């Protein structure tokens, strides 16, 4: 079943569906009367429900990875350095061809009463991301990267769906107190995703 309110884009499609469906209802009502409008409403509602019910959901639509390529999403916290990340990712790939997406959360202070300008945190995360990508490149791993929010759950889920990742690596320092690590990111990723989520502690 496809959720018609899964995203803004799907909600917008629902607006268009509703517009078309109720145009039919309005025409039926104006031409043949109220009961015809009711019948038209029943028919178009059944059609719209059938449309969404027969479309696969997000997780069902995700293509399965094929061939020998390994697809991995790597989440790095603010305390780990690029060399160790590159070393561990390279070891886990065992030389196989891979597609790697690195996500660096922008760590912001969650306690402030009003959202502040988060550009500084995002710039810091961008620097950390570029450093990690450079280390991966020097280790022979071509990777792409994204800056995530302080709670990068959605960013990770989107990346997993986009590349049909086979697993997720969450890399933290053993003594890290990253806000998203304290928030149980790994547990929530395991609940949300249907791919293995592995926490890597670099010590």
């Amino acid at each position: 079943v496809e959720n018609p309110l899964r995203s803004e884009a799907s909600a917008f499609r629902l607006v268009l569906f509703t517009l078309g469906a109720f145009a039919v209802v309005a025409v039926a009502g104006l031409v043949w009367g109220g009961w015809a409008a009711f019948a038209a409403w029943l028919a178009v509602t059944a059609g719209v429900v059938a449309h969404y019910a027969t479309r696969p959901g997000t997780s069902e639509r995700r293509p399965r990875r094929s061939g020998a390529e390994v697809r991995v999403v790597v989440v790095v916290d603010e305390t780990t350095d690029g060399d160790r990340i590159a070393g561990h990712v390279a070891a886990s790939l065992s030389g196989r061809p891979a597609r790697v997406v690195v996500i660096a959360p922008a760590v912001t202070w969650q306690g402030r009463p009003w959202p502040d300008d988060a550009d500084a945190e995002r710039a810091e995360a961008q620097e950390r991301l570029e450093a990690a990508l450079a280390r991966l490149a020097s280790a022979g791993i071509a990777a792409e990267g994204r800056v995530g929010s302080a709670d990068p759950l959605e960013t990770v889920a989107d990346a997993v769906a986009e590349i049909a990742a086979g697993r997720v690596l969450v890399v933290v320092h053993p003594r890290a107190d990253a806000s998203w690590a304290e928030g149980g990111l790994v547990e929530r990723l395991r609940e949300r995703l249907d791919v293995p989520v592995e926490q890597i502690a670099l010590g």
Partner: protein
Amino acid sequence: MSAHAEALGHEHGHDHHGPPAANRSSRFDAATLGMFLFIGSEAMLFGAFFTAYFFVRVVNPDASEIWPPAPFEFPVFVAAVNTAILVTSSFTMHWATQAIRRDDRAGLKAGLVLTIALGLAFLVTQAIEYAHVGFNTGDGAFASVFFGLTGLHGAHVAVGLSLLVISAIRAFRGHFSSSHYHGVELPGIYWHFVDVMWIVVYVTVYLV
């Protein structure tokens, strides 16, 4: 220094202060589940008002054959203009979200400002409509249902506008990017939901 992998256990080994973490048994994240529950409750609220509407118009044995009962009339054309305004605002909202997905912050700001302007135009038009409609809540059950349904929807437009204003302020302060736009997407879902409800209200109350 060596790297090692460890499977995360269900229990944390370190000392924990404060209340225990909330149990998360759902596959939905909290924000998305919250939005679903909110919209579900909103749909039921509108459902209650539509039930009253159908009772007054169809089930009631004293219901007039003509809707609304003579000599009153609904301002169908003004409401059609308002419908066009609100549907257009869904397009500008969608444009804003698509813009930030491409890291186009100018497009995001323009889309949000246009959506807010269209939402305000809707509310102003509805207020003018109320002032000139020619009947009031005391003129019959049909009038109560009319003001109840359209007023309930207007209140939702006002709430949606508040959310969009917050999003716009954050957009102008540079809070959003292609990988971080949850604060635009959720108000967008709500705005489209409000738009869907208006299409239903307009066709049901004004046209049919």
